[in-house]
């Protein structure tokens, strides 16, 4: 059972306090988007074995959504951060690269 620190209230929250919310940093495609863009937004979610960015909500705590960077294979948590950013912040990237030398953020992260 994971522990993630809520970046808003600072609580080290047990997984039972949290709700998962799938992949982070998705760019929304609305009216006018091509079928390919809409399909990619709606259905083509990443499922990597390794570094991954996820949305979590501190449902049974402060109620805030936040983002987490963690390794899906080892469950190592590199950090949690505000959901109100369009891409992983530099300090999170640095933490990941310190633990996973050579790792680069996905070029497709556009939002």
């Amino acid at each position, binding site marked *: *059972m*994971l*522990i993630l620190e809520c970046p808003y209230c600072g609580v080290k929250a*047990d*997984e039972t306090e949290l*709700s998962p*919310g799938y992949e982070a940093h998705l760019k*929304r*495609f*609305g*009216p*006018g*988007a091509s*079928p390919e863009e*809409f399909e990619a937004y*709606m259905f083509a979610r990443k499922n990597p074995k390794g570094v991954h960015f996820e*949305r979590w*909500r501190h*449902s049974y705590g402060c*109620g*805030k*959504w936040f983002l987490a960077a963690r390794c899906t294979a*080892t*469950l*190592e*948590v590199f950090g949690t951060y505000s*959901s*109100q950013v369009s891409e992983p912040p530099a300090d999170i990237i640095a933490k990941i690269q310190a*633990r996973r030398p050579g790792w680069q953020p996905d070029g497709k992260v556009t939002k």
Partner: protein
Amino acid sequence: MSTRLAKGGRLINRAAPVEFSFNGKRFRGYEGDTLAAGLLANDQMLVGRSFKYHRPRGIVASGPEEPNALVNLGSGARLEPNQRTTTTELFDGLESTSQNHWPSLEFDIGVVNNTAARFLPAGFYYKTFIHPRPFWKHVFEPIIRRSAGLGKAPTTGDADRYEQVYAFCDVLVVGAGVAGLLAAKAAADAGSRVILLEQTPTLGGRAPVDDTEIQGQPVDAWLTAIEADLAARDNVTIRTRTCGFGVYDHGYVLADERVADHTPGDGRPKHRLWRIRAGKIVTATGAIERPLSFAGNDIPGVMLASAVRDYVTNYAVSPGDRTVIVTNNDSAYHTALALKSAGLDVPAILDAREVADGALPEAARAAGIRVLTGKAIAKVKGSKRVNGVAICAQAGEGAVQEEIACEAVAMSGGWSPVVHLWSHCGGKLTWDEGISAFIPDPSRPPLNHDGSAMVEVVGAAAGDLSLTGSSVAIPPVWVMPQGAPIQLRSKMWLDYQNDVKVSDVQLAAREGYQSVEHTKRYTTLGMATDQGKLSNINGLAVLADALGQEIPQVGTTTFRPPYTPVTIGALAGESRGEIFQPLRRTPMHEAHEKAGAYFEPVGLWRRPYCFPRAGETHEQAVHREVLNTRTNLGLLDASTLGKIIVKGPDAGRFLDMLYTGVMSTLPVGKCRYGLMCNEQGFLSDDGVVARIDEDTWLCHTTSGGADRIHAWMEDWLQCEWWDWKVYTANVTEQYAQVAVVGPNARKLLQVLGGMDVSKETLPFMQWADGTLAGFPVRVYRISFSGELSYEIAVPSSHGAAFWAACVDAGRALGAMPYGTECLHVMRAEKGFIMIGDETDGTVIPQDLGLDWAISKKKADFLGKRGQERVYLASPDRWKLVGFETLDGSVIPDGAYIIADGTNANGQRNVQGRVTSTYYSPTLKRGIAMGLLKQGPARNGEVVEFNTVAGGTVKARVRDMVFYDKDGEKQNV
């Protein structure tokens, strides 16, 4: 025969005799005994029958690895099946019965399976019972179900209670043998908060049985000192009878404490489940001795060598006057010496090794015991108990050289470190050639949240077998003798509980099974309640040999929690009965109970389904409530309706994105019906929105949808439009809401008095604040029934009193409370949709004829792009229409509309389905709504629905508004 020795027994208290029963026979034992020790002390060697062949089985082990000796414990509300006698503490009055036999343990008809054993090989069920198909369901399965299986599930509720506790520590040590005690002391010395768990009632593990020296001290003295030391420390918590059974992510460990298993009914919880979050986990879980695979190794009286010396030393129980030892390592010599010093005879030690010249073998020789090296057991003689062994050369094919009479056989095939907890979260193993066992690989540990090693393994669990006397190399002996022919191999049991033999695994390999995971499932090796603690390594060694591979190449099956079976009561804890889940009650709940309401669950809410009167069926009550509401006055507790305040300068803009319609233009004081869709465009929720003031809206959601929709709003506000100035608040429980419905609705409000609710002041789809009978109210003029209707919100604290005021004042106007079923019937008569009935997550509003509620002007709203997908515009989609049966009957719930022909699976084609179907008391006939291919375009057509009873019912397609199509009733 097995019996109690006159003296000795380190764990028993001879001053405290206890009485217990097995299959109705009364036995005597002592406090401190396990049930297994008590049974052996009374010469009860035969304790059960095997799963598949119903062979006689006795006690093999002395701990949680025991595969055979499972019993039903207790009776009635305290009956527990499949309890291990080897871990069950004896207490006065304990009742036990054996399992899996018919008609009796001594004489079991199922044993015919035994003579037919060669016709029941691995995969037998798969191979034999495939054809003819119906035979499986009607012939084979009922027979197999009766003959296979273990204990019977209790039929009454559990009389005991269980509790759960949370605990936190820096270092959690699992296992309080020597290694665990040392680890706990080291961590405590370093200032850590330590929790030490031990599954048995006593600390010390195996060391005191083997009478070794620890740190230069006799083991008992050393133990006394370290126990006193740890007990005196504030930073150390010791829990005995507590099995740490599972390691989970980020240092989370579950442990089961058997608080009152040995003192049933004393008022304490039976078990206590510990939910522990540990900074670091140290597993000191020891090692389990392996059986040897020789013919007849399952006959009662064949036991693990370590178990034999446990029974002799700990409980002063002799397994028999003469015990033959068979081994491939030095540790079993401890057993020979223990038996000898208890005054018992050891006719021979059969050592599969060519040379045995360590300190222990020399001590055995010095004690006058005959040590035969290079020897093996060709066959164990006896059926319900051992009466001798035939000896052969280990290197040969089983030619008998000598027979020795004996009552027991003590076997040791080496030791398997207990690596389960290390492996639960992905710790990797490595094969140790020296001790022929898998041990944890410290370079590949399970990881914690920060990437550090989460688990450390110490002592025998890490492969350090020095305390067992087996630190010297243990050569692998997987089959005994090594060249055994099929006649012998088909009598060598690997998995006692599931009846898997050496020959079964070899057959699986011949049939092409290569993966250990597949072989496990095909043969059922290691799939019993002991999860292969004794059988797995022996089994995969046999598989590796049959495949011509090395053991590490074949690998192990996956270790999953729990390490030992955990009773479901402990996992449930206090979450039983009324507190199984939180129950939500409206402020008027008590009044409904007094009025005799019949409740139904709606999410976590309990809502009145109807209010039956004396002698009325529920159906009759619903019909009365519908007719009364349509002709006089009905009162509905609508408090469960979701209520979410959306407020702020950007609230209108936000609601325009959330709803398919336009909410920003709604004038203050007015109400508008709205639909919410997910991003795929499918309908998700609906409800009436009221504009409260310039920057405040109140959104009503469905009763089940309030929390979900509130979370949905927050998701978009926090993660997508975080620069929009909007606040939301879920105020569902802040207000009680009463729907006053029917021709007399306005009269009731006038009787209550306090505000103008006339048609002119408060027209349809408007709201007003005011007072009624002195209560502060907000009155919404909205209708879900088609009648003149007001929904009146009061603060929750006034809910019960306001409801009572409505009931009292309504009496003269013919008011009756009505429930959810009446609500459903009335909305169906009006053709109003219900989320969850007309929708199922694949339905867009356009399918339901709700195009009018979708804005054409807005550039964007959630779901707009999804609804633009081409296939959603297909004219062939199933669309909502009404149905009227030709004979006036009610279409069954869930019925499909059949079409010509069959699909690829030979099933009848369908072209639609019913979504809401009721008897309408108003129209005195069955009415229905449903989704039909091309829907409204087929108005007037007759279609056929299938029925549960078989056959079909014909219905005519029509529009879905059955009652007051022009809305004259609600607009008065």
